Structures are given as C-alpha cells and as structure tokens.
C-alpha cells in the first residue's frame, strides 16, 4: 500500500506541475484570450505530442500483452493459479 501511495504522489506531481505552468498561459484579462490564440494552439500541439507519445506506449503495451498472453499463443503457459480456488 505504501508503494502505491508513493507511486500516486509521484504521478500527481508529474501531472500537476506542468498543469500549473499551462494555467498561466491564459493571462489575467478576459480580452487577452483571443490575442493569445497562438500560444494556446502551441500548447495544444505540445499537449497532443505528449498525449500521442504516452498513448502510443500504453496502447502498444496493451496490444503486445493481448498478442503475447492470449491462450492460443504457442508460448502460453498455465498460470500458477489455474485449478486453485483463488
């Protein structure tokens, strides 16, 4: 449980710090929103670059797991739990 809390804290910090940075791109004055459209779109593309990279890693991992650990894979082995009352 402690490890999970630690992992959660690290993930939180990684997410929150860049987010605070992004927030200030908006500016204080409502009239500035349109003036800052270039910055906003730049942020959008940066975020999409991150999202696609992370997405590719997670989706790639899932696809590999699905392919590698399917029961019809010749390398598939019974798990340690099969036949037990887990």
């Amino acid at each position: 449980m402690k490890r999970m809390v630690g992992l959660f804290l690290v993930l939180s910090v990684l997410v929150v710090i860049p987010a605070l940075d992004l927030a200030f791109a908006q500016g204080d004055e409502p009239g500035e929103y349109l003036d800052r459209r270039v910055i906003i779109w730049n942020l959008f593309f940066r975020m999409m670059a991150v999202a696609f990279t992370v997405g590719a890693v997670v989706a790639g991992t899932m696809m590999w797991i699905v392919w590698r650990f399917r029961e019809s894979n010749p390398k598939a082995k019974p798990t340690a739990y099969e036949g037990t009352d887990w």
Partner: protein
Amino acid sequence: MVLELQKPRPIWQIMFSTHHTDIGLLYLITSLAFLFLGGSLALAIRIELFFPNIEGTGQFIADSMTFNRIFTVHGTTLIFLFIIPFASAVGNYFVPIMVRYKDMAYPKLNAIAFWMIPPAAALVWLGFADFTWYAQPPYSIISSPGPAADMWIFGLKILGISSVLGAINFVVTILKCKHPDMSIGQVPLLAWSLLVTSVIIIVAIPTFAAALLMLLTDRLGLSGFFNPAMGGDPIAYSHLFWFTFHPEVYVLVLPAIGMMYEIIPRFSRKPIYSYNSGVFAFVLLALVSFSSWGHHMFATGMSFTEKTVFMVGTLAAVPASAMHVFNFIATMWNGRIKFSSPMMWAVGGIALFFAAGAGGVVNTAMPLDFATHDSYWVVGHFHLFVMGTIAFASIGFLYYMFPYVTGRMYNEAWGKAHFVLSFVGTILVFFTQHVLGLYGMPRRVFDYPPIPEWIVMNQIASVGAMIIGVSMVIFLANMIYSSGKGELANTDDPFGLGGKYYYPFEAKNPHH
C-alpha cells in the same frame, strides 16, 4: 441460480418479487430496452447530420425543435435509463452474493426503487422536452414549452429519488450485511465500486433535487432563482447542476471499472494485480469527483484562481484513473488470456477509456478548454467515455452474466462480430467528432454550413453510427435467440476457464 427461461415462472411472480435477482432482472431488461430506444434516437441525429441542409437534399427530422427534443431525450435516456439502471442490475445480482448475504438489506425498498423508474421514464418519453439533458436556463424557464419540460423535471425528480433509495440499499448491504467472517478489505472490487458510487449518489443528488425544484418554481413564475428577468442568475444553476453531475460522471464510470475488475482477472486466469490500489483509486476518484465541477464552466467568467483550482482538481483524477489502467495491464501480464466476448469488450473498453481520458486532459487545461468549449470535441470526448468505456464494460458484463441469468450460452461468433463492429463504429464516430470540434463545429446544432471538411467528417461519424446500429441488431438477435434456444451452459464454468465460476454462493444464499 436464476434460470429464468429454462424454468419459466408467471411474469407477475417476477414483477412483484422482492428477491434481489428478480429485481436485478427487471433492472436488466428495462435498461436494455432503453439502450435500444436511446440508441435509435442517436441514429436519427446522425442521419440528420449526414448532409448539411443544402437546398434540395431534404431533411430527415422536420425542424430544429424536434431535433432538440430528440437529443434531449437521447441523452436523458442513455444516462438515466440505461447506464444507471444497468449498474443497479449488476449490483442487485452480485452484491448480495459477493458479501454473502441472502438478499439486499431492504428488499421492499429495492423493489420500490426499481418501480419508480417506469413512471419516470414515461414522463420523460411522453413529454419529449427540448432543453437538453442539462435543462439549460434561462431557456428552460422562459421558452421551453410545457408540459414537456415540467414532465421532464418530475421524471428526473423521481429518478433521483430512485437512485438515492438504491444507493442507501447498496451501502447498508455492503457495510452492514456482509458476512461476519468477511472484512471490508475482502469485499470484491465490483462491490467496492458500487459502494463508492452509492456514497457519491447520496452526497451529490440532493443538490440537483434542489435545483430541479427551483427550476420548476421558476417556470411556474413563483420564483426567479435562475431567471435574469427577475434578478436571478442562470450560472447559479450551472454550479448546482455540475456539483451533482460531475460526480455523476464517476457514478457512471466506476461501476463499469468494477465490472472490468470482475472480467479481466477471470479471463486472464489470475487474481487482480493489486486489490489495494483498486480500492484506493476508487475512493480517490470519489473525492476528486467533488473538486472538479467547475471545469464545465471555465467559459462563464470565473476568476483565474477558481479556474486554476478546478483545473488542478480535475487533473487529480488522472493518476487515479491511470492506477486502474496499470492494474488491468499488470493483471493481464503473464496470464493465459481467453478472448471470449466479455474479455474482448473489457479490453476494448480499457483502450477507449485511455483515449477518452487523454482527450479530457486536453480539455482540462483551461487555455485549451476555450478552444474546444461547446464544440464537437466535447461531444466526442464524453461519448468516448459513455459509449467506449461504460457501455463497452456493461455489454461485456452482460455477456459474462448471460449464462448465470438464462442458464444458456450466447452465440460466441455473434458476440465477437458485435464487438468488432461496435469497436470500429465507436472509433469512427467519436474520434472523428474530436477532430470535427477542432475544425470549429459547435455541438447541439440541427444544421451546419456546407464546409467540405465538416461534411466529410459528419458523414464518417454517421457511417460509424450506422455500423454500431448494425452491431446492436446482431446483439439483440443474439440475446433473444440464445435466451430461448442457446446451448445449455455449464454453469460451474461456462467459459471453460477452469476453477470456480462466479462465487460458490448457492448453498449460502437460499431464496428467502
């Protein structure tokens, strides 16, 4: 064991029963009926948007008012009459079994909670209100025609009471009726998800109940809470609505994740990787759900500080959601995965959950929210959650519980065809809608100018919707045919996974 069609009983016996599996069956059939009804309305919307209203092409839906009525009832139906009752169906079937109790804590209350749904649904469907599922004031107060709007308000009021009664029952059943030998740390994650969901409902729904009353008295001219002409503030309604309905997002998604926690270990043939992190993430998401309602309202003139707080509050959901995804991936790792229909739906749901979450992070960053606000991006984002994650997990779980409910097996090939078509259709509709939003198309529009990019993307989305429609016809045929004529299931292990299926509950849970 419930073998409803193998040993048919008079229908009134089921209708007036208070046993948890009978109530579960009623919830199940009701929710599926509304899935098809609400889905049909979605198809009507997509057919209307296939072409812009260029002269000579004609229209599928007569006028904008009818279009508004259709998408209002579409949203209301699929959220309140499909997703939530489906979670109640699963909870009714499995929670007493999981906590090893003979029934729900309050069986009669359970039946009352279910029987509040049909009149509420009748009010929503017979009225056919036009003010969106959000009941947008001041339009809903000064312009929306009655009695449709009033019927919708009363319908939602009844559904809210039903949800609260059901939630109280789940909380008491799980916390007070679980077997004395069973600690709270041994309660399965599906039951945990329903416990957390129920607490959210009990805390969040009263705020919307108050807002509905205020809306009704505003409509009657007795008050002016949200009516600017009487000094009221429509933004106040936004706060009350989203204080309930952002947590409601988690009310919808947490049971779906709980269902995945049931399917993925079974079909991977190994226990969940980290039970504790699953519980931790559920509780954390419940807390976070109350700290992020303002992100729906960034464009309403909130202060910079308020927006920053809500943005950070929203982003706090990311690590907790990621914990669930990592938990699923780690569980499948080193497993021996059988890709029967339930597992295909669950894995597809996880993939789309991640995609929907990534889109949500973009929305959450408030400078970017202004670029996507009220555009089709938002439509794509939340539909990827409700269809891609919640409906996928729910349908997967329906295949999983099918042998338990009917004693027969569904047709596996049809189940897989259903999944493949739905997966492709979902990606075509909702990924395209994200891009359509970036091209500037506003949401909730009856018509759009003939911009070539908009036309092409709307047509891709509409084709995707039709593919989903075809898959749902296969699904319906499979369910009806297999319920009566499917092969008899080996109810000890219907999917051939080895080990015990569901829970060794029968001897411990005799009918009362």
